[in-house]
């Protein structure tokens, strides 16, 4: 529903000065798989990078069977983020779970940090539920 939205994030240990959109991502998180064949999502994504897709389907069923073979297997994952969101939060808002998955697969941020950030952003019970969804995603990925 709505228009396709792209957001960019840069993580670094020193000051980030660059303001251009991320054109060569190290990691790509696809929250809405219906966009897969509507917009050129993978433009600039290096095959050494990470790819996370919010879906319960297999890559083959998404038409990405061949594409994902270019990536190291431990750099890619499908995440049932919307389903876990419904389970933990009651609404199909996949972002928290995707962040948990991101932590698991890239190891660039710790799960604890992700959950703490979630709690700071969303107060009380809402934060806890989202943090739990993130935790679920993290643990599922790490054990696979």
């Amino acid at each position, binding site marked *: 529903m709505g228009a396709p939205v792209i957001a960019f994030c840069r993580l670094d240990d020193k000051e980030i000065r660059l303001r251009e*959109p991320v054109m060569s991502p190290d990691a790509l998180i696809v929250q809405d798989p219906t966009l897969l064949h509507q917009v050129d999502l993978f433009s600039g994504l290096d095959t050494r990078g990470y790819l996370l897709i919010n879906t319960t389907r297999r890559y083959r069923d998404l038409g990405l069977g061949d594409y994902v073979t270019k990536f190291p297997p431990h750099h890619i994952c499908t995440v049932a983020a919307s389903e876990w969101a419904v389970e933990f939060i009651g609404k199909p808002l996949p972002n928290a779970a995707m962040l948990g998955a991101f932590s698991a697969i890239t190891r660039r941020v710790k799960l604890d940090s992700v959950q703490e950030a979630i709690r700071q952003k969303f107060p009380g019970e809402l934060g806890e539920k989202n943090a739990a969804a993130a935790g679920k995603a993290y643990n599922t990925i790490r054990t696979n």
Partner: protein
Amino acid sequence: MLKQMEGSHAVAEAIALCRPEVICAYPITPQTHIVERLSELVQQGEIGNCQYINVESEFAAMSVAIGASAAGARAYTATSSQGLLFMTEAVYNASGLGLPIVMTIGNRAIGAPINIWNDHSDSMALRDAGWIQLYAETNQDAIDLHIQAFRLAEQLSVPVMVCEDGFILTHAYERVDMPDLNQVQAYLPPFEPVQILDPADPVTIGAMVGPEAFAEVRYLSHHKHLQAVEVIPQLASEFAKIFGRDSGGLIQPYRSDDAETVIVALGSVVGTIRDVVDDMREDGVSIGAVKVISFRPFPMLALRAALENAKRVIVVEKAFADGLGGIAVNSVRMALRGLTTPIYTIIAGLGGRPITKDSLLRAFGEATRDELDDPHFLDLNWTVIDHELARAKEKRRSGPIAENVLRDLGLVGGKPV
């Protein structure tokens, strides 16, 4: 205290720390988050007895600020693009009356065509309205410049606009060091007006001034800007003492001391330019940059000193003058008058088009080889331009340009080209 937050919310918190007494708010993308957050802060009682007025237009917003400031209150508002134009009459009125209002401009392109994304056409359109104009490179800058703006405005009785790039800064989440109230209060004393509507001591504000005195009144405004050139660096160094970081001032050079080529720019693009400079330096190119923070008053002497040894200067701008080229570049030329330094203009980022490192690298490279056209419109789609020019030549009734171009780019369906 270090916080990770949206730029506009950071600005709102900084404004709140400055304890404005009247905030007038009218929404326009991309500054709206600032006034929304301020309304929350006012409601929560975070800003004392501050009065938050929801006005019916930007013209009303600036007018309410004028009335409030004339009655002795610290007044604040924010706008962008079309809103700034709509309040233009009042913007000139505020500076003409010498009222120290502070306003945030969330820089956004001016239509037509309507466009909500960033460029500098809005604040550039009002560059000679008598307001001081400061440009923020980062959201930390934005916070710091607003605090300095109140101090500067009230010290000189001149209104100040703090310009920050819409979306790029306003909607970016980044780490900022939010000052605490004690620091701000140590830096910014309570507002002491030079003129005030006071029944106990009545004055007439806003009388007509004829040919016999108008020039003198206007010169005194010019004089304030000349004073500001001295005051701005002073306030910046005071700021550093209290807040512990370098912020504000007229300009900020970056590896430009010994540079053959120096880039001059305003706002967030300076960040990207720093990265480009570093990359090119690594490749052995003698290049540096100068960030202009105070565009009005324009730092003539400081900029000349920073540029006079350069072999060439490139001004990167986010606005332009139809038929002429850049706008900021003219002030740069004035600063370098008498010198024969070649000055290039790169016009980039119009209507929010991303300014990429790659494109700047390419353009700067061409400039260092003196192969760059001037003015250079960065990343312009010449195919589309040529197409449209041909279409207009062929048929008188060629239709609205915007629609034609969008169709050309495949962004709008319908009739085949």
